C-alpha cells in the first residue's frame, strides 16, 4: 500500500499485527517471539490495552503488535472498535490471524472480515493438538488454497511452529499476498457491488476504507461507518438505507442479520470443506467442571480456593513486610541523624522514604503475589467459572457475573480492582462495580481490622466487620442499581478449556497490572507522605483536630483521633499507626473504650477510599463520579459509625 508507506516509522522494516478471538493463544505467540520484553501502551482515549514489541525476525527489525482479542471486526464495542480503527489507520504490513484450531468454524468469521481489509495476511492455526484431541483434522493446504493466504500450524504453548509462522510472515510481506475475497450469495454480492460503485463515485478516493469493505460495513449497520457517512455525506444516507431495506426485504430479516448470517454460512461451508471429523478423545478436563461448576460443590471449592489464596498471600506478605518496614524506619532515623532531628530537610527526606518504602511494602509482599495468583487463576481458566457461579448473586446487586472479578481483586488492593472494571460492557455497570471495588476492604484495611478489632475484641468481632461490610456493599449496590435502572447487558462469556499456564505469560500479566499501581498510586503515596510531614512539622494537628471535631463528636471518639483520619486518606493503615502515636500509647485500652475502638475501625474501613484509589477512580470513571463515590462513602461511614456507637452504647 503506497499511501501507507510514507506514514511508516523508519526504525522498523515490518509492522506485524496479531489479531484473533479471545483465548486463541495470541499472547502466548507474542511472548514466545517478544521474549517478554514488551512495551504496553494504551490506545488514545480508550482503556483497552494492546502490547507491542520490537523483535528481530529473519534478520529484519519488526514491530510486533498484539491487539485485544475480538470476536469480530466492528465498532459495536470498544475493543472491537479500537482494533478495527487500528487496522484501518495504521500502516500494517502483515496481519497474523491467530485461530484456535479447535474452534475453526467460528473463528473463520473474523478471518473473512480480515480478508475484506485487503492487508497481507497469514493464518496461524494454533492449538492444533487441542483440535486433534477433539477429533478435528484440518487440511491446511486446502484451507490455504481457499483463502489465498499461507496457513501455518502451531502449538504456541510448546513453542512449536513459531519459526515457520514468521518465515511465512516475511515471505507474505515481500509478496504482499492479500488473500481472496470470499464471495457471499449472488444477490447479496450484487447489492454490495452496487453500493460500492456509488460510494466510489461520491467519496474522496484517499479514504483508507473504500469500495467493498465500506459497502459491507454499511450494510451491517456498523455505527462508526454509518456515522461517518451521515456526517460527511448526508446525501448518501438515503441510498444506503434503501440498500439495507432491499436486503432486509429479500431475506426477511434485518440487513445486519443477513450479513452476519451470510458470513456464518460461508465460514461453516469452508470449515466443512477443509476438515474431516474423527473420534474425539476423552477429555479429563470436562470431568473437572462436573465438580468445579457444580451447583453445590462448585461453591464449596470456590470458597476453599479463595480461602487458600488469601491466606497464603497474607501469611507470605506478613513475613516480608515486617523486615521491610524496619528497614524504612531505619532509613528515616538515618536521615534524621544526617540532617539533624527536627529540621525540615530531615522531615522531607523522611517523608519521601516513608512514602516510597510504604509503597514498596505494599507492592512486594502483597500486591505482587496477589496479582500473580490472580493471573494464575485467570490463565488456568478458573475465573470464567467464578463468573458463572456468581452471576445469580451479582444480579441481585444489578450487575452480572463478570463483575465479581474486580470485587475479588479489591480484597488485595482497590487500585487494580478499579482498573479491572473495564472488563464490563456498559459505563453504568463499570460505575457500580467501581463503587463496590472501592468499598471492599483491601489488604491495608485488613491490617486495621486485625490490628484493632481483632487484637482488642477478638477474631469473631473482626469477622463480623467483614460480614457487615459485605452486607453494606450489597445494599449499596442494590440501591445504586435501582437508582440507575438500566438493564445490564447480561453475561455472555465463553468458558474456555482449562490450560496449563506459562510462567512468562503470568509474569508479564502481573507486571502490566503492577505498573498501574506503580505509576498511579506510588507517586501519590510519596506526595501524600510529604504533605503529612508538613502537617506534623508545622504542628497543624491541633488545628486539624479542631476542624474535624464535628466528626469525632458524632462518632464519640477522642478529639485527638481527628488527625489520624486524614492520614488514613493517604494510606489506610497509617490511620492505625498514627492512632498509636496520637494517643501516645500502644495500649489503647488505657485511653479508649472497646466501643470507641470498634467505632473507629468501622469508620476507617468505610470512609473515603485512599488517594491512590481516588486516582484510579478518576482515571476509570471520570471526576464527577469519582467525587460522588468519595462523598457517598464518607457519609455512609459516618452513618454506620454512628449506628455502631449507638449499638455499643446499648450493649455495654
Amino acid at each position, binding site marked *: 500500500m503506497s499511501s501507507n508507506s510514507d506514514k511508516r516509522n523508519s526504525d522498523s522494516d515490518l509492522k506485524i499485527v496479531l489479531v484473533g478471538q479471545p483465548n486463541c493463544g495470541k499472547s502466548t505467540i507474542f511472548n514466545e517471539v517478544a521474549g517478554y520484553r514488551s512495551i504496553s501502551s494504551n490506545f488514545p482515549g480508550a482503556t483497552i490495552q494492546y502490547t507491542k514489541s520490537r523483535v528481530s525476525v529473519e534478520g529484519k527489525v519488526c514491530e510486533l503488535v498484539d491487539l485485544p482479542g475480538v470476536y469480530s471486526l466492528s465498532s459495536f464495542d470498544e475493543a472491537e472498535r479500537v482494533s478495527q480503527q487500528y487496522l484501518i489507520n495504521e500502516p500494517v504490513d502483515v496481519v497474523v490471524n491467530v485461530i484456535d484450531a479447535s474452534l475453526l468454524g467460528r473463528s473463520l468469521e473474523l478471518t473473512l472480515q480480515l480478508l475484506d481489509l485487503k492487508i497481507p495476511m497469514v493464518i496461524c492455526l494454533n492449538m492444533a493438538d487441542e483440535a486433534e484431541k477433539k477429533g478435528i483434522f484440518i487440511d491446511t493446504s486446502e484451507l490455504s488454497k481457499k483463502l489465498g493466504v499461507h496457513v501455518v500450524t502451531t502449538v504456541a504453548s510448546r513453542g512449536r511452529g513459531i519459526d515457520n509462522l514468521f518465515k511465512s510472515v516475511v515471505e507474505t510481506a515481500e509478496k504482499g499476498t492479500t488473500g481472496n475475497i470470499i464471495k457471499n450469495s449472488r444477490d447479496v454480492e450484487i447489492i454490495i457491488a452496487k453500493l460500492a460503485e456509488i460510494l466510489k463515485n461520491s467519496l474522496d478516493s484517499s479514504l483508507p476504507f473504500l469500495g467493498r469493505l465500506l459497502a459491507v460495513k454499511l450494510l451491517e449497520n456498523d455505527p462508526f461507518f454509518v456515522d461517518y457517512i451521515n456526517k460527511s455525506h448526508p446525501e448518501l444516507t438515503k441510498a444506503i438505507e434503501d440498500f439495507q431495506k432491499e436486503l432486509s426485504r429479500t431475506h426477511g430479516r434485518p440487513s445486519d442479520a443477513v450479513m452476519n448470517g451470510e458470513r456464518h454460512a460461508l465460514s461453516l461451508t469452508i470449515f466443512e470443506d477443509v476438515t474431516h471429523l474423527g473420534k474425539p478423545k476423552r477429555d479429563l478436563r470436562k470431568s473437572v467442571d462436573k465438580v468445579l461448576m457444580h451447583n453445590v460443590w462448585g461453591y464449596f471449592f470456590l470458597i476453599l480456593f479463595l480461602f487458600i489464596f488469601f491466606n497464603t498471600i497474607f501469611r507470605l506478605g506478613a513475613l516480608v513486610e515486617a523486615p521491610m518496614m524496619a528497614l524504612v524506619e531505619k532509613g528515616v532515623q538515618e536521615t534524621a541523624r544526617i540532617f539533624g532531628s527536627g529540621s525540615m530537610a530531615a522531615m522531607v527526606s523522611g517523608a519521601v522514604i516513608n512514602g516510597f518504602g510504604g509503597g514498596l511494602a505494599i507492592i512486594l509482599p502483597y500486591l505482587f503475589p496477589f496479582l500473580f495468583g490472580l493471573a494464575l487463576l485467570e490463565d488456568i481458566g478458573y475465573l470464567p467459572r467464578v463468573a*458463572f457461579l456468581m*452471576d445469580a448473586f451479582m*444480579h441481585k446487586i444489578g450487575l452480572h457475573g463478570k463483575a465479581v472479578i474486580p470485587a475479588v481483586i479489591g480484597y488485595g488492593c482497590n487500585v487494580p480492582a478499579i482498573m479491572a472494571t473495564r472488563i464490563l460492557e456498559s459505563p453504568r455497570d463499570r460505575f457500580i462495580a467501581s463503587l463496590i471495588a472501592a468499598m471492599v476492604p483491601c489488604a491495608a484495611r485488613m491490617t486495621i481490622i486485625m490490628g484493632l478489632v481483632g487484637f482488642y475484641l477478638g477474631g469473631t468481632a473482626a469477622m463480623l466487620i467483614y460480614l457487615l461490610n459485605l452486607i453494606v456493599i450489597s445494599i449499596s449496590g442494590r440501591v445504586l442499581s435501582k437508582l440507575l435502572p438500566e438493564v445490564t447487558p447480561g453475561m455472555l462469556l*465463553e468458558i474456555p478449556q482449562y490450560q496449563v499456564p506459562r510462567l512468562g505469560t503470568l509474569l508479564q500479566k502481573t507486571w502490566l497490572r503492577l505498573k498501574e499501581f506503580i505509576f498511579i498510586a506510588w507517586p501519590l503515596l510519596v506526595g501524600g507522605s510529604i504533605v503529612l510531614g508538613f502537617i506534623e512539622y508545622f504542628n497543624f494537628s491541633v488545628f486539624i483536630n479542631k476542624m474535624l471535631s464535628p466528626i469525632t463528636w458524632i462518632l464519640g471518639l477522642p478529639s485527638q483521633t481527628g488527625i489520624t483520619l486524614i492520614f488514613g486518606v493517604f494510606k489506610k493503615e497509617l490511620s492505625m499507626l498514627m492512632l498509636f502515636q496520637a494517643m501516645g500509647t500502644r495500649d489503647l485500652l488505657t485511653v479508649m473504650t472497646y466501643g470507641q475502638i470498634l467505632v473507629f475501625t468501622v469508620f476507617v474501613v468505610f470512609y473515603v477510599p485512599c488517594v491512590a484509589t481516588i486516582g484510579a477512580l478518576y482515571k476509570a470513571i471520570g471526576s464527577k463520579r469519582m467525587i460522588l463515590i468519595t462523598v457517598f462513602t464518607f457519609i455512609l461511614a459516618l452513618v454506620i459509625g454512628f449506628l455502631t456507637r449507638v449499638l455499643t452504647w446499648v450493649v455495654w
Partner: protein
Amino acid sequence: MDNITIVNAKKNIEYIVQEISGGVGARRRLNQMGIHVGDIIIVRRSGIMGGPVLIEVNGSEVAIGRGMAKKIIVGAVR
C-alpha cells in the same frame, strides 16, 4: 415438540436454534459467540437461583445469563 427457550430446555440433548428474539445488540453478541439461528446446541448446565445457562455450541462452551438465555428459542432436531 413445541419451540422453547433454552432456559426450559432439557439438558444434554441436541436442539436446533429457531429464533433469537431481542434487539440487534443481543443478537450480534450471540452471533459472535457462535450462536446463530440454525445452529445445534446442547444445554449442559444451569446455575442455581436464576443463574446462567451453560451451553455447548460448535465445540465451545458459553455461559449465557438468564435474561439473554430467554431470548434463545430452540426446537427439536429433525
